[in-house]
């Protein structure tokens, strides 16, 4: 990957900051979760940070990103403020969905997050709809559909690819393939190869989703191609889920065991930054500490925010 070497320091530091924010926030959620302060199911992204960071670096606030149930990583990478996320998990009125959504339903219109859904598959079509709106109004934003490997089993996935191609829409499909649907491995749920199947409809590439520079480079190509009017693109990112499907516990599937040197996107990027001299070890430590501070702040914010007061909106 020759392009890795040419990454600018600020881009690389953005990627690291974003991944660390996702990681450290997720670890903090996992630590707090057993205390029941967050009454909402959580699907954590630990291990998968590179996909969120590497793709979202190329997106603008105008691009509209539609997520499924595993929201925190890509939402933070897209710009959702930490305070808004944390307050939503705490069920507070200052949360990004005012306490009406919870972990699986995040909204941030200012940062191009028009919502996310807990029903697997369906939100893929919404990103296509955003692309259609961009095309019909001759605006320059992308629709982005973000989903897991198992969402490729849902019929709506194919219907969405077909229509995006027929209409040549500016849509980026991002498959965050962690190899599992809950505890069901990919081979048990998919007879097809995801990239090769997507390639029946549009340009599709598979990338190592634990290597943020690889994701960054591939996403750059895909986004550029879309922005220059080339129609939809498919990015298939193979990554790893370190946690159980839901909740605060580590994944205990032996076949899915983690090897940090091989699997950790943060470890790998930090090694690259140090080795290439783009950042010093001390800087990296400082960054981690700074992020920890923002998380402390977000939690204080959430804890001190009011609960929503029940009311019915008249229809």
């Amino acid at each position, binding site marked *: 990957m020759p392009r890795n070497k040419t990454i600018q320091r600020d881009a690389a530091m953005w990627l690291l900051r974003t991944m660390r924010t996702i990681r450290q926030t997720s670890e903090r959620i996992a630590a707090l979760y057993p205390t029941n302060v967050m009454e909402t199911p959580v699907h954590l992204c630990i291990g998968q940070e590179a996909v969120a960071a590497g793709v979202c670096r190329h997106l603008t606030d105008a691009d*509209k990103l*539609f997520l499924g149930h595993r929201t925190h990583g890509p939402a933070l990478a897209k710009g959702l403020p930490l305070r808004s996320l944390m307050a939503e998990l705490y069920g507070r009125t200052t949360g990004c*969905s*005012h*306490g*009406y*959504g919870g972990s699986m*339903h995040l*909204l941030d*219109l200012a940062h191009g997050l*028009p*919502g996310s*859904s807990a*029903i697997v598959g*369906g*939100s*893929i*079509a*919404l*990103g*296509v*709809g*955003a*692309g*259609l*709106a*961009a095309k*019909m*109004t001759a605006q320059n*934003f992308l*629709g982005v559909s973000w989903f897991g490997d198992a969402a490729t089993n849902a*019929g*709506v996935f194919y*219907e*969405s690819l*077909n*229509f995006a191609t*027929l*209409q040549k829409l500016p849509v980026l499909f991002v498959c965050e393939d962690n190899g599992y649907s809950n505890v069901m491995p990919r081979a048990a749920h998919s007879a097809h190869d995801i990239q090769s199947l997507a390639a029946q409809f549009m340009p599709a590439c598979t990338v190592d989703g634990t290597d943020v520079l690889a994701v960054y480079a591939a996403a750059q190509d895909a986004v550029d191609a879309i922005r220059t009017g080339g129609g939809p693109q498919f990015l298939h990112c193979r990554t790893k889920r370190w946690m159980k499907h839901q909740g605060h516990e580590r994944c205990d599937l032996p076949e899915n065991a983690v090897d940090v040197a091989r699997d950790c996107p943060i470890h790998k990027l930090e090694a690259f930054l140090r080795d290439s001299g783009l950042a010093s070890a001390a800087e990296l430590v400082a960054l981690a500490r700074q992020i920890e501070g923002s998380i402390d702040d977000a939690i204080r914010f959430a804890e001190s925010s009011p609960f*929503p007061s029940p009311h019915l*909106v008249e*229809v």
Partner: protein
Amino acid sequence: MPWSKFDSTYSAPLTGRQISYCAALREGLDQAMGLDPRVFAIGLDADDKFGVFGSMSNLTHPERVLGTPISENAMTGVALGAALSGLRPVHVHLRVDFMLVAMDQIVNYVAKWEDMFDRQVRVPMVIRGIVGRGWGCGAQHSQTLHGWFAQIPGLKVVTPSTPYDAKGLLLASIADDSPVVFLEHRWLYKNMGDVPAEIYTLPLGKAHRLHQGDRLTVVANSLAAMHALTAIEQHGLDVDLIDPRTIKPLDIDTIVDSVRHTGRLLVVDYDFPFGGFASEVVAQVTERAFTSLRLPPQRLGFPDRGMPSSGVLERAYYQTPERLAAVMQRMIAGESVHADHQALVVPS
């Protein structure tokens, strides 16, 4: 916003201009698209030469009319995504039955989206579905389902019965910032009526009295409203006929006021009977106007089974103005008929 100047309390004056229900739908859509560049139409066969039974023929802005593959579920999501990105889609289905393919999107997505985010984002989209009946359409091509959709919070349900209503309610539905399921009956398409040429919207949630009377309140929507009107006129019945026009929001006040006056209620609901729109009307009226009721309220609708195909079976399955008239006459006579849905299938 181009819509704010259309006050829904304003009644466009009737000018004697007669057009069909179908033409009224077409005109309403065409004018909405002309008024607001955010409005577009999408649907299977929406762009073909048949123009959705003529209701979308020769629109002024064909560049905003999109045909789709047989992918109703994803297409509903596409419409939703477009609505969330600043457009105002009108998604059309040639048959209500095809909407069932899209129920995940309609119920889990479209209906829930505003609620899940505390209405920080709005979903201005219209889903048009056309109700079929007869010519052996059968069980999979004849469903109505207005009561079924109305059960889902977050969906408005609109069922125009006249050309005037078709245009005004379609424009109002497109103007609305929340999802509207708009159900048209194919058997009304040819009906002619007075329709002003100007743009006008009718309020969603306001019933319309189609006939004034003192002895019995009949609530009926869509084709059933027209059949009830025929029954009343042909037999000179002293009936207060109320067409709710929108199943949801439901103008229960107008219905209750009428029942307070007549003391008797019949709901004619061309739909499956169990827990449908008619049941809701009966339940609400009983809760609110209990002491005014002089007879047990009654419901007339479909039998509780799928539509058969053979013509003789269809003609037994469906209500007709004649059958409605017979039940109305008995209720007016004070008979406590038990309008058994099932019994009506066996022609007597």
